[in-house]
Structures are given as C-alpha cells and as structure tokens.
C-alpha cells in the first residue's frame, strides 16, 4: 500500500463519512429555515406582511380608536 492509498484510507474515508453524517444532521434545519428560540434575542429585520409602506411608520400619527389586546409569552 502506497502512502497516498494509506492517506486516503485512514484520513480521506473518515472525513467523507463525517461529511455525509453532518449533511444528514443539518439538512432538515437548513431546508426549514431559521428557527425562533424563545428567550434568545431577536435580530431579524422587521417585516410587515400584507401591510402598508414601512417607511411611513416612523412618521405616522398613531390611531387610538378601535380595540384589541396585548399578551406576553
């Protein structure tokens, strides 16, 4: 067995197995996207889905008529 063959067998093959296992472990969470973990801080950019112009929010006059509720978790 040459030095190259020995290297591939004892280093290359374990690395390949390690890579395949890591891919199987991380693939589901990579395809699902980011996951929210309660208690950890939140850095994602604000998003207003189906809303109006986000740039107008800061300067908008708040509307206090109407109802609603608040909650915490």
């Amino acid at each position, binding site marked *: 067995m040459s030095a190259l063959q020995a290297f591939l067998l004892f280093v290359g093959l374990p690395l390949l197995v390690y890579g395949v296992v890591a891919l199987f472990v991380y693939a589901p969470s990579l395809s699902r996207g*980011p*996951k929210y973990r*309660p208690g950890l801080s939140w850095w994602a950019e604000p998003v*207003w889905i189906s*809303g109006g112009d986000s740039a107008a929010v800061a300067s908008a006059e708040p509307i206090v008529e*109407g*109802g609603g509720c608040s*909650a915490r978790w």
Partner: protein
Amino acid sequence: MPAGDAFSGRQLDSIERAIRQAEEFGGLDYSVYVGDTDGDPRERGRQLLGALGQEVARNHVVVVVDPGHRSLAILTGSRASLHLDDRATALAAMSMTSSFGAGDLAGGIVDGLRTLAEHARQPRALHTDVEN
C-alpha cells in the same frame, strides 16, 4: 436567531395564505408585523394603523409580534372592532402565545389569524330590535 430574514419562503407563504383566507372569510383586512417594538407592541400597532391612513385603518386588523421582548398585540380599527371584540382578539392571542412559547412563530401566527377570521362576525345592529 441569526441576523437575516425572520421567516423562510415557505413560512412567509403560509402566513400570506392565512391572511388571504382570513380576509375572504371575515371581510376584514389583516396584516402581520414581526420585529422589535422597543417592548411596546401596542404603540407600534397604533403607528402601523396610522401609516395605513384613517380610511384603510378603520377596517384593518394588525397583529404585532415582538419575539425579542416576547410580547404581542392585536389592534383592530374602529370598524373592525365592531366585528372582532376584545374577547375574540384575546382568544386569538392565547392560541398564538402557546405556539410562540414552543418556538413556532409562523405556526402561531397562522393559528391566530384563523381564530380571528372565525370570530369576525357581522356586528349586532343596535336599537333595531323589535319588542314582541
């Protein structure tokens, strides 16, 4: 939570679909804001309604979720509040917070929108009851 988008494409699709279904089902307009509100989601909700303009805001329901501060507010416009009373919004908030506590942000929003749509009903006409 790493910096970047709050939701994956699939999660965004499911939320947008839930908004569309809620609008078709109950006749009100909905939007969902997810982001930092400096710990006051109610005030941010009022500002969001303000940004929509008086006329549009009247029929609008805005759901404000602040994952960092673990707080949530559901604000209804003046006409929308006749269809969706505070008890109905509290019920939706409860279904949302139970999912949020388990780490399911998108699923909680979809559930909450469904609950809101189910409770959006025609307002009771006042002073038109006929006594028998």
